[in-house]
């Protein structure tokens, strides 16, 4: 039998030694509960399993030339990333409960926390959460705890995928969830001002936002802080090679989706939710945290720390129910950032922005194609306003081998002709030229 070591003879010998039969080992299960036998096909040999799954993989369309983003980006993954992350001492371990034999993952998580802080200009980060949406929700819950207030303001330029998750999670909790309407591609300051008062726990915004537009939130931070609330900023880590950091804008909690840091798109997961905050809020932060300390001989070592926030100690009074998180994805992000390094991240961000800039220029040469938010700056994603329904164009381009972008009408009913286009370093100039050509003839 696959993956079972003991031979039938050994099993017999063990049963004899403990004086039981196999059936006796299950006699505590009442007879009427014993399953009559599973209707599951017989097992397959490894070769058969792999052939079958290779066949299923072939039924997915992955050879499209992609301009699809929406918060999830097709970045290049250097070979050293999977090579290091797939060392089985890392991936077959569990939560580092025994620090003496878990220094590898503990130090890596400490380094990951440090890298996230350096990237976002914050002071402390946790060891990860499930994904960017969960991280945003957990940030909101944290703000409620920090301020003891009931209202959360989320702008509609924040990922609609995350906003639907937040609605689900806050549904039973008696939280006032206010969604503000943006104007011209950015959060409308007048709208925000209307909803920020001494009942407000936090305002959540995103940069670059779901439309790809860049913003500067220092004014929002001032307004929020004047009322004793917190500013939560969700961000796209690769953009931070070029874009002003949430920390520099005065954010109190920074979250985001870490998929772009060396993690494959993989049909939606596993991904990586990161979270960073100010040191003063650390005891209200959810998720595991690793700290640096010493052993009896003064040697440096790393441990899980500040665990009194967590569910295995605090149970129903814990800051969150999350225990197992995305340790291996956090390691992936750290390895990726270490390989790129200080200059590499800047260069990568520059390449993405330049290619997006080129794509924007080429696409605007097409008759009747405009930018939806022409006054805004963008990093690597922008909204095109087409002369016809975006869905129609996407369908036509799919037939020609392109994933043209995301139809914003899925989440914004008034935006039927708006196409969200993302460009990463993986797209070549030739592909962009071809895309512009095919789009032009498809209109």
């Amino acid at each position, binding site marked *: 039998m696959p993956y079972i070591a003991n031979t039938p003879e050994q099993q017999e010998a063990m049963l004899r030694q403990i004086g039981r039969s196999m059936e006796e080992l299950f006699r505590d299960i009442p007879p009427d509960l014993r399953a009559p036998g599973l209707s599951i096909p017989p097992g397959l040999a490894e070769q058969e399993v792999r052939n079958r799954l290779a066949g299923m993989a072939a039924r997915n369309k992955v050879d499209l030339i992609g301009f699809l983003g929406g918060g999830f980006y097709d970045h290049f993954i250097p070979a050293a990333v999977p090579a290091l992350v797939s060392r089985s001492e890392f991936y077959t*371990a569990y939560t580092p409960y025994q620090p003496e034999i878990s220094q590898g993952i503990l130090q890596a998580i400490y380094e990951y926390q440090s890298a996230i802080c350096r990237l976002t200009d914050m002071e402390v980060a946790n060891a990860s959460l499930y994904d960017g949406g969960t991280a945003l929700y957990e940030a909101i819950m944290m703000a409620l705890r920090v301020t003891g207030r009931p209202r959360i303001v989320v702008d509609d330029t924040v990922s609609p995928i995350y906003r639907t998750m937040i609605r689900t999670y806050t549904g039973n909790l008696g939280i006032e969830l206010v969604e503000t309407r943006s104007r011209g591609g950015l959060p409308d300051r007048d709208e925000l001002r209307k909803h920020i008062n001494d009942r407000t726990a936090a305002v959540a915004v995103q940069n670059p936002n779901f439309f790809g537009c860049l913003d500067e939130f220092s004014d929002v931070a001032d307004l929020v802080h004047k009322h004793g609330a917190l500013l939560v900023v969700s961000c796209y880590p690769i953009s931070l090679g070029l874009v002003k950091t949430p920390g520099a804008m005065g954010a109190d909690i920074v979250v985001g989706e870490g998929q772009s840091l060396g993690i494959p798109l993989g049909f939606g997961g596993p991904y990586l939710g990161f979270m960073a905050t100010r040191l003063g809020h650390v005891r209200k932060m959810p998720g595991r945290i690793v700290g640096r300390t010493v052993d009896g001989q003064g040697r440096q070592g790393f441990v899980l720390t500040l665990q009194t926030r967590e569910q295995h100690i605090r149970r129903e009074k814990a800051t969150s129910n999350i225990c197992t998180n995305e340790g291996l994805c956090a390691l992936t992000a750290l390895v990726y950032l270490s390989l790129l390094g200080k200059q590499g991240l800047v260069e990568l961000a520059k390449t993405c922005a330049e290619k997006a800039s080129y794509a924007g220029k080429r696409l605007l040469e097409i008759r009747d194609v405009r930018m939806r938010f022409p006054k805004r700056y963008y990093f690597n994603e922008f909204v095109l306003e087409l002369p016809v329904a975006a869905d129609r164009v996407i369908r036509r381009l799919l037939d020609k081998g392109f994933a043209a972008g995301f139809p914003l009408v899925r989440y914004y009913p008034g935006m039927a002709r708006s196409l969200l286009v993302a460009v990463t370093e993986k797209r070549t100039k030739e592909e962009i030229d071809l895309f512009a050509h095919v789009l032009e003839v498809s209109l």
Partner: protein
Amino acid sequence: MKVIFEKSVPGRGGVRPVRQEGCPPPQIAPHLARERPAELPELSELDVVRHFTELSRRNFGVDSGFYPLGSCTMKYNPKMAEQIAGYAGFASLHPLLPQLPRGEMLVQGALAVLHEIDLALREICGMAAFTLQPLAGAHGELTGAMIIAAYHKDRGNRKTTILIPDSAHGTNPASAAIAGYQVQVVPSDPSGYMDLEALRAALSERVAGLMLTNPNTLGLFDPHIHEISDLVHGVDGLMYYDGANLNPLLGRCRPGDMGFDVVHINLHKTFATPHGGGGPGAGPVGVGERLVKYLPISLVGERPDGSYFLDYDRPSSIGYIAPFYGNFGILLRAYAYLLALGREGLLRVAENATLNANYVMEKLRPYYDLPYGGLCKHECVFSARRQAARGVRALDIAKALIDRGFHPPTVYFPLTVPEAMMIEPTETESKETLDAFIEAMIEIAGLAETRPEEITRCPTTTVVGRLDEARAARRPDLASLK
């Protein structure tokens, strides 16, 4: 060992990103731009490779040796599954493709995988349908608790409380609380089962449900499960099954048949997906017929022509709990494992997991206290109180095991057992490995009697000794900042 930032050499570079000539410069106004680059390390690719290789050598995984961490089911993770998860047809698939017009037809292979896992889990658990979206076991618990809340809301029930036994995992009460419920603890009886009298006393019209692990965290199958289900259903409460301990029941007994209405499964435990040093996991949730309409958006459906689609039209659903379809890469690994095992394989898993645990329990029974000593399922829980009287605590035994090449069992859990040592060998371990572990445990018990200081000074073979956790909490150093 230095942290990676301390190894940085100004001007050194690792992987070079692609450049493209002939593109206009980025259009980012100065007030929107970053002032100084992030202080990431400046290292060559080889520097980075050596750093993480060295870190990996300071880590212990299932591939390194025996890892009987109770309640975590640290079984072998087949290599085949890693390779399959890397197939470009899965790894490069953008999760928003299905939301494009006719987009479902672009991802038929992935939807087929999801559908087939759903079918297999239904059969194994005896439930009507599964959502594969929950991203970890605790996420499954929260999803399940929200489904329970949706059911009661629909029925107009005014429910405030979830019952949880004192032996439960800490995530159970935390998840129930985050779903908006008060938590009431039900004590265990002297045999380690749920105290039925206490349960009767706790039941009222306010009770929304009971969260239970069976076999429980003592490794005991609760024989009164029918009665418990009937009692809870009697107040229109729902039965929630924490599937952390499903391994010994595969093919033998189904949560649905025990009367459970909601079930979560930890695929990273029972279905052999790697634990990743603390995730990613996957925690699918299955429900009985009357709760299917509350499952999260979306669900995979099958059309009469055999093609698959994503059903977003679910008006009674609790809503969206994850960005997409779950931790697909983990689901894929679990599916590969299921295909390899098949019907027979699943049965053998349950048998050998149970046999291995009982073998260890019987062999160690003379040397350590066994508070609940009948028959166990996948794990057994000893108490080191006899050794503690000599100054050797469960933690010391754990450290002594490290020096002998083993990962220790879970210690100090469940909370109902003093000096608890929770041993879960899993079915993938051989008799030789178990015998070596048993021998080490016996040796340690002997030393605890004769030379306890040889145990309390462990570990001596590791890269660091016991670390000062009090200092870590009192003077937090949580990041290397520049």
